[in-house]
């Protein structure tokens, strides 16, 4: 099992910078996620690990071994392709056996390992089927067995669940997590689905335009996003722009809707910085009681209420014209109705003050 280290990995496709000086360290046995929108370079990074692409600059290390120039067939990585890439001219058994045959393993050992691998993914009964007789979920499992049977140093998963329907996806998430835990194998998982990454990942690298925007646990990246991009990409967030007014006891920003107190989201916050106050919709409350107060209070009028069963969403227009989204749980009681004048309160703990960078503003969707 490998620990993996990427040093300054850079890759260019026809003058487009696909990866820009990527530095990453992934521990042996870790379940690591590469998360980002399409075109952010996450799949390219995975393919560089598998050896299908060569970095233009930088090094790839498996443990201490420099594998930058090692061809794919000598890397001992097990890849699960997005489309599974099961060979249609071979049975399920032959598909799984292939990697062992390439390793010149004895027939006896091969039989044993293939049988165990198929058992592991609960596909024992399908050994003689051809891949196109299988459902998407079953194909997915065979692809997984094929990658695991060679006892790879690292398993590379390229959006493995994206072709499955929603329910199956949830089921496979759990199975994958269990497998990873039992086998203790290093797994690198590429996805654009933030929910998947939050739900399964031990650590997540959020990628943007060929760079790593942030690395951290799901809790970190959700609660303490480092950039507007990360805040926007993971979950939903309200952004209110303003200017830093004071940094003495707490960070305070002046905005069109009054002062907002929050946590510094970047180092070296200075008075006069142009900033964005990022507030998650579920951390804002209606202050129904006139006298009740909290760290931050802003005023607005409810434009729309969307009842979703377990939660209810509200869109509140502020005096500045901005709209703020709220999510209220326990939507049994009626919080507010369109047209209501409301007071919104949120604690200073829940506000991350981010640098308002021009380039970020262009890229964020």
């Amino acid at each position, binding site marked *: 099992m490998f620990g993996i280290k990427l040093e300054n990995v850079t890759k260019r496709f026809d003058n487009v910078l696909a990866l820009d000086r990527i530095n990453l360290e992934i521990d042996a046995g870790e379940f690591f996620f590469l998360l980002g929108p399409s075109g952010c370079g996450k799949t390219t990074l995975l393919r560089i690990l598998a050896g*299908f692409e060569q970095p233009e600059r930088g090094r790839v290390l498996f443990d201490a071994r420099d594998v930058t120039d090692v061809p794919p067939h*000598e890397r001992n*990585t097990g890849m699960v392709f997005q*489309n599974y*890439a099961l060979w*249609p001219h071979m049975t399920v058994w032959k598909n799984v056996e292939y990697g062992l045959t390439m390793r010149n393993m004895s027939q006896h050992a091969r039989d044993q390992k293939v049988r165990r691998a198929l058992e592991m993914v609960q596909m024992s009964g399908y050994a003689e089927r051809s891949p196109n007789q299988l459902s998407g979920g079953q*194909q997915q499992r065979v692809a997984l067995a094929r*990658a695991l049977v060679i006892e790879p140093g690292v398993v590379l998963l390229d959006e493995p669940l994206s072709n499955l329907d929603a329910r199956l996806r949830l089921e496979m998430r759990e199975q994958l997590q269990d497998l990873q835990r039992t086998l203790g194998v290093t797994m690198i998982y590429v996805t654009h689905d933030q929910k998947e990454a939050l739900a399964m990942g031990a650590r997540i690298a959020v990628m943007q335009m060929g760079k790593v925007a942030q690395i951290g646990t799901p809790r970190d990246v959700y609660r303490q996003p480092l950039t507007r991009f990360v805040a926007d990409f993971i979950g939903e967030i309200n952004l209110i722009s303003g200017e830093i007014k004071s940094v003495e006891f707490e960070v305070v920003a002046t905005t069109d809707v009054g002062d907002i107190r929050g946590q510094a989201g970047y180092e070296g916050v200075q008075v006069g910085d142009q900033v964005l106050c990022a507030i998650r919709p579920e951390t804002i409350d209606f202050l129904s009681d006139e006298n009740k107060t909290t760290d931050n209070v802003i005023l607005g009028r409810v434009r729309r209420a969307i009842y979703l069963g377990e939660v209810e969403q509200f869109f509140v227009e502020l005096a500045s014209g901005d709209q703020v989204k709220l999510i209220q749980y326990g939507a049994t009681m009626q919080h507010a109705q369109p047209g209501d004048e409301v007071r919104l309160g949120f604690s200073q703990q829940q506000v991350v003050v981010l640098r308002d960078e021009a380039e970020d503003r262009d890229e964020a969707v």
Partner: protein
Amino acid sequence: MKRFDLNWPTLIFLVGLVGFFILFLFYPLWYAFVQSLVVDGRFTFAFYELMVTSPVYQESILNSFRLGMITTIATTLLSLPLAFLLVRYDFAGKGFLNGLILVPMVLPPFVGAIGMKQMFARFGSINLLLLDLGLIDQPVDWFGGGGFVGVVILEVLHLYPIMYLNVAAALANVDPSLEEAARNMGSRGFRLFRTVTFPLMLPGYFAGAIIVFIWAFTDLGTPLIFNYRQVVAVEIFNSIEDINENPMAYALVVFVLLLTVFFFYLSKATLGSRRYEMIARGYISSGSRPASRGMTVLIYAAMLSLTGIALIPHMSVFLTSIAERWFMAVLPQETTGRFYTMVFEHPMSLSSIEMSLMLSVLSTTLDIVLGIAIAYLLTRTRIPYKGVLDAMAMLPLALPGLVLAFGYLAGYSGTFLDARHYPVPLLVIAYAVRRLPYMVRAAYAGFQQTSMTLEEAAQNLGASRLRTLFQITFPLILANLVAGGILCFAFAMLEVSDSLILALKDEYYPITKAIYALMGRMADGAYLASAMGVFGMVLLIVSLFLAGRFLGRRMGELFRA
């Protein structure tokens, strides 16, 4: 909702179409089949017995098999490496080389044979050149074995582009991630090719191999020119004269037909059930990579030398056509343009050009009408038994021209369509039926690429269905229709087996038959024939070029199985 769109006009057209197919596709084949089994009202296997027992027929069948096999193997060995180079590498001029591959196809192989015979004769250019250079001291008998080698060489040089198109398409269709998965599992090089790439290419390769095999097996013109008479195609051709006394030809035709059916059945049975384009593609890696400088040089060297060799027949035809005197010399001693003038003066060549033009215009018109109608029915309506209609329209692609032409000649003998009296109707129909698949494919592709919402928008605004068809659909798919039409026309102009078999009177000879007849008749027949060959070549080049302009890169798709 009704299950099918069947109104009276559609129904009448369908009935007419089925009638047409029955009359001009199934009946002739059935007729040959019956004639081969029934003599004077009695059922007999005598001819099939004779086919197996008679040394003459045994020899012919064996020779045809050898011709087919060797051609198939040789074209495979040529096309596989070529396909790998051109599909897997990116380099400057890739499109140009891809086009270059098709160039040798512009000459029917039997016309090339005329030139080749001149060049490779005992005292032809090649031997004289080698003698001059002191490389040999005896003239080499290049086409030893009674012409077999010559026939093989011409078939290979003519057919490798078709093999290439199929192999290259098959290779390009292999999902790159399937190969990547194999490399990820530790496979590489030839082992990777043997265990993953080639098995995945197999359906496409097999389809190409069948076409090439059947083509070489049934080619009539080339063996005739080389006077290599012991092959099935020539046996059938020779027995046309005395078909009423000797029905052996029927058995041979049925044999060829069954062989064709068998091969296509085999490919369906073994490969048809495998659908390889099964899963949506994930990360699209193109599967090709930039070629290094050295690799580019290698690719160009390989392609240019191969094309150079493949164009020797063309060159030799051209040289022959301008030779005033060409005797015991490497190149013609004197050149002349008089054979080109002669093409338009000699009664046979002139009338053959007029004849070919008329036949091709008529057959192309028929193809366009039928092709558009069939493609429309297949793509835009719900009619019962669509698959059957599709299969019927595509069937002629698999059917050797020799078999169909023979069926026409025999099946309609003694009727008002008898080719011995007036071959024009049957020639037009034969040309049309043989090229119909190209037109259907071209139109089909057009209809498919044109979103139905564009038509629906017009109908929504009040245009009738017919009006929509003419004002919206046809303008949008015009390029496809024109390209399909040009191809039908060009191939009709240079159709060989139909013309050789069906045109039996001088005044009805089309170009190809005239070339063949002139070869045998006049002292300088070969020169005049070559001039006509060059004329045909130019015609085909211009047509293919035009069709290519209209169809763009999809051109190659028309030649694949």
